[in-house]
């Protein structure tokens, strides 16, 4: 690593990308806020937010987004942690299994919804298997508009399936930073596998868990295509409402208001996680 302070080269190399990001993030960001507070003729108003709040779908979208968040995020972090510890035990062939577990990473939320749709439709594979096994005598309508539990379950399965791989990568990278001796010493002193995990691994994994939680929570606020694929409009979520207000209702200001809400929630989530789990040290690593 060279120390050439005062040289312009690094700044010249960084300028194009940073200017690009500034233009593509800061300008639309300001625009989104302005748009959400704008009247027809460009004046200031709270009307867009008032209409957003008054919309029948808003409270449902709010509830569903958080419901999915509080089910999916802990579930997939627990699952990813279990898989990460399994892979990290370095059993023979663990590399191949690890590769298989990361494949869902390649799948978009829309495609994940459609993949699992093959299982959950009325004549889908889940009903087929259950019927062949004699568990049910006629197809269950998992994705019917009045089967709220069925809709939520299908979305939770599809979204956990897709995004566990991402959390797994974060946690595996974190586990690899922990020296092997930590595990061996713990074993020497007779710590059982469960206690070893709890006392040795979890505190050391805190920075990784923190970044995994932050990334996943922010992405959870943006979830919508997997919901559209499985539930259509029967289960409103915040990002889906932003899309619908823009594409279907042609009202970009209310869509922008939803965008501002999602952005605000993401920032709140980061602050909360840093407060709850973080030290400045973890912040620097995460």
């Amino acid at each position: 690593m060279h120390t050439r302070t005062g040289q312009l080269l690094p700044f010249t190399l960084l300028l194009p990308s940073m200017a690009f990001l500034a233009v593509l993030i800061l300008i639309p960001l300001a625009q989104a806020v302005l748009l959400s507070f704008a009247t027809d003729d460009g004046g200031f108003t709270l009307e867009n937010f008032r209409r957003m709040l008054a919309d029948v779908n808003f409270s449902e979208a709010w509830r569903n987004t958080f419901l999915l968040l509080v089910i999916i995020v802990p579930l997939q972090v627990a699952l990813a942690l279990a898989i990460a510890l399994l892979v990290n035990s370095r059993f023979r062939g663990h590399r191949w299994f690890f590769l298989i577990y990361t494949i869902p990473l390649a799948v978009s939320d829309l495609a994940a919804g459609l993949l699992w749709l093959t299982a959950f439709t009325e004549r889908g594979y889940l009903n087929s298997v259950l019927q062949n096994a004699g568990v049910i005598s006629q197809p269950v309508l998992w994705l019917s508009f009045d089967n709220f539990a069925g809709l939520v379950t299908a979305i939770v399965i599809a979204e956990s399936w897709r995004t566990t791989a991402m959390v797994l990568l974060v946690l595996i990278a974190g586990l690899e930073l922990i020296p092997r001796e930590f595990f061996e010493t713990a074993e020497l002193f007779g710590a059982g596998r469960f206690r070893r995990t709890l006392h040795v691994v979890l505190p050391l994994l805190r920075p990784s868990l923190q970044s995994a939680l932050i990334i996943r929570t922010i992405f959870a606020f943006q979830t919508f295509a997997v919901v559209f694929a499985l539930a259509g409009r029967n289960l409103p979520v915040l990002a889906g409402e932003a899309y619908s207000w823009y594409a279907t209702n042609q009202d970009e200001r209310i869509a922008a208001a939803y965008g501002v809400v999602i952005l605000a929630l993401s920032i709140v989530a980061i602050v909360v996680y840093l407060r709850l789990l973080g030290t400045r040290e973890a912040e620097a690593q995460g």
Partner: protein
Amino acid sequence: MTARIFDRTLIYGSAVVLAIWALIPFYLIAISALTPPSNVSDYPKALIPSSVSLATIELFLESGGVVAATLNSIVVALLTVVLGLVLGAPAAYALARFRFRGRGVFRAVVLVTKMFPIAILAIPLAAILVRLGLYDSLIGVAVVHTAMALPFVILIVGGVFVALPYDLEDAAETLGCGRLGAFRRVALPPAMPGLAAAAIFAFVISWNEVFAASILTVRTRTLPAQVLASLSTSPLALKFIAAFFMVLPAIVFILLIRRYLRTVWGPR
């Protein structure tokens, strides 16, 4: 001894169950895509199809706009790759090779952008692109996808340059190669696989992105935007085969760049 056998059974048992969990949707979409369209209405279906057919794939290729949308997706993804590398690779090199005032700030910008819900900016961006005459254009979508891919390109390429010894490049420079020559002849060749991995990752990000692509286009749809727009109208068989086509290249690409995945999501 019995404890060890029990241990191994437990380890391999759970490893296999998890592998089945990870793979089963791919199997289901593959048999949905490779059986005749009538398979959709069969009930109860067999988990192992009795015949294989390309009829569903033909249906997909003949249905309106899908081929065009796929081509659009490819063009947008390639534009994203080019823009992402042109903008991201120099930045990655600078962050990996130099210590300078403000380096921490630049690194923070990269990390924040990685997590920033950029898709949400699609709504105001639509208004901006309308004014610029770029609304409903492939370049407009590619520009937004580039912003989403850029932090990942910088992380992957930066990881590669950090791992390469600087001494060689320095020596080449001292021996009269010149700064650019040293970079081109010494630093660039071993970094090529990393650049390729970053390109592939940028491609996958663009190929998979649906929110911004849907907001920023009306007629010039990418494949995910087209599929999303026709979700409520298209028959099940068509949805399944579309998902099959969306997933297939993404899987191949992820397998190709598996070595680099950790750089992307690892702690930093």
